[in-house]
């Protein structure tokens, strides 16, 4: 009897304090504060910042993937740090320094593995999502036992990871169905200096952007036997490319209907290609060299930001007419944008003004600004359910 009473008491107190409010994470996200090694936990139902989590090291060029339950963010830092952040408890769960210099990562189809792409020592390391224990180490060896920087790492259906070797001009597909025996298929003719890669939202095509030559390299993951195909040779040919002050990012690369929109390297234009023939069908003149070309989730608009020194501007393109319909000047150094899952708002980082602006994508009005120290990437948890993100 006494015991029962005690249990009742415990239950009562549990009710009162231990579970104050249940919360799900579907409307949450993390923003990188690149200069001070911190992330902010935010939510986009009320547009507020909920917490700051410190101690993540060098976050210049950092990116994040989410566990499939959307509770944990895995932050890839420049200094080789891989940090697991609990966005509900708003703290670091675990942090490992897994290399000297890394560039980004991906989470596997089944959510059990995290792969990290490293510049130094060049290669990819794969970790167990739950423990951050090393599962596979894949040095990017080429030529005469040299190590290449790796870029453009993405996850692909069939428990695969795909990435490219910057120095070697290769693309590797790693099959992790047997966790202890990675099966690597190498394509050695990707082209000169692949600088980034992406996978189409359906997970079928991997495309690497090439710095050292015109065109891009395409790999059909349904038909690996076809090998690398060169697409859009000579886009921008005949004109001297402008100096490229920042490498374009291919992630977030826009696909709308049959059309694909991508940043041209060294040109003030967005290239439009047909996604079945992979031929260039047009180009849209824009204000500067595009960095990110991102479609709103309904594919009706494309939002483009630009390289230094034109990074104070955003342009919005109407996909139907392929015209620039709006030019915005949010402030100095607009580095990244993220749409809310259904696209009514877009969040954008204005690095040099320590602000993240939240805009209505129909009226283009700023509806709110948050104070964020040197913000760069903004990552909402709905990425957890998308191939390649």
């Amino acid at each position, binding site marked *: 009897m006494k015991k029962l009473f005690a249990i009742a008491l415990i239950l009562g107190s549990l009710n009162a304090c231990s579970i104050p409010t249940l919360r799900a994470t579907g409307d949450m996200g993390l923003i990188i504060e690149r200069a001070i090694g911190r992330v902010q936990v935010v939510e986009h139902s009320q547009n507020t910042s909920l917490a700051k989590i410190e101690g993540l090291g060098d976050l*210049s060029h950092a990116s994040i993937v989410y566990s499939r339950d959307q509770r944990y963010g895995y932050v890839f830092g420049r200094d080789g740090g891989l940090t697991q952040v609990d966005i509900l408890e708003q703290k670091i769960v675990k942090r490992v320094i897994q290399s000297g210099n890394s560039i980004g990562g991906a989470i596997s189809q089944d959510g059990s593995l995290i792969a990290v792409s490293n510049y130094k020592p060049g290669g990819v390391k794969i970790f167990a999502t739950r423990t951050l224990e090393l599962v596979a180490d894949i040095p990017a060896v080429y030529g005469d036992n040299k190590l290449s920087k790796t870029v453009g790492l993405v996850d692909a259906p069939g428990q695969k990871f795909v990435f490219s070797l910057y120095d070697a001009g290769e693309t590797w597909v790693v099959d992790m169905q047997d966790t202890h025996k990675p099966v690597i298929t190498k394509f050695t003719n990707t082209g000169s200096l692949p600088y980034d890669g992406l996978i189409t939202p359906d997970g079928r095509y991997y495309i690497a952007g090439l710095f*050292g030559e015109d065109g891009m390299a395409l790999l059909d993951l349904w038909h690996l036997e076809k090998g690398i195909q060169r697409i859009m040779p000579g886009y921008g040919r005949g004109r001297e490319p402008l*100096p490229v*002050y920042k*490498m374009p990012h291919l992630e977030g690369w826009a696909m709308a209907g049959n059309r694909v929109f991508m940043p041209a390297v060294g040109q003030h234009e967005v290239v439009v290609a047909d996604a079945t023939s992979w031929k260039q069908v047009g180009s849209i003149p824009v204000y500067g060299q595009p960095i990110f070309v991102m479609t709103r989730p309904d594919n009706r608009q494309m939002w483009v930001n630009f390289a*230094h020194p034109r990074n104070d501007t955003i342009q919005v393109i109407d996909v139907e007419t392929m015209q620039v319909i709006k030019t915005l000047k949010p402030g100095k150094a607009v580095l990244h944008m993220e749409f809310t899952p259904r696209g009514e708002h877009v969040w954008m980082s204005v*690095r040099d003004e320590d602000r993240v602006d939240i805009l209505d994508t129909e009226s283009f009005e700023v509806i709110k600004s948050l104070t964020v120290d040197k913000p760069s990437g903004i990552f909402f948890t709905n990425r957890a359910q998308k191939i390649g993100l």
Partner: protein
Amino acid sequence: MKTSLLIILLALVTPAQAELTQQRLQELKHLLKHDCGSCHGMTLNGGLGPALLPGSLKDKPDELLFVTIREGRHGTPMPPWKSLLSDDDIKSIIKLLRTPPE
């Protein structure tokens, strides 16, 4: 052709450097950290481009750095900065690169 360009550039490097304003110096520091940093790492310890820390550059003469920054390196992502940076700017950047980070 290349060598004659180099000689002209070397001649440019030698004259005494005009002092930049404090404000310009701050701008250059910012540029180095964030814009050069987008390829060389925010702490300049390397990224797509090599590390630019004093130790990694100690065997590289000022002239080489000057030409690299001014003209870029053709066939690599290192862009020419001459349309954005004056020669004095570039010399100040080299000084900054030679100074160990605090």
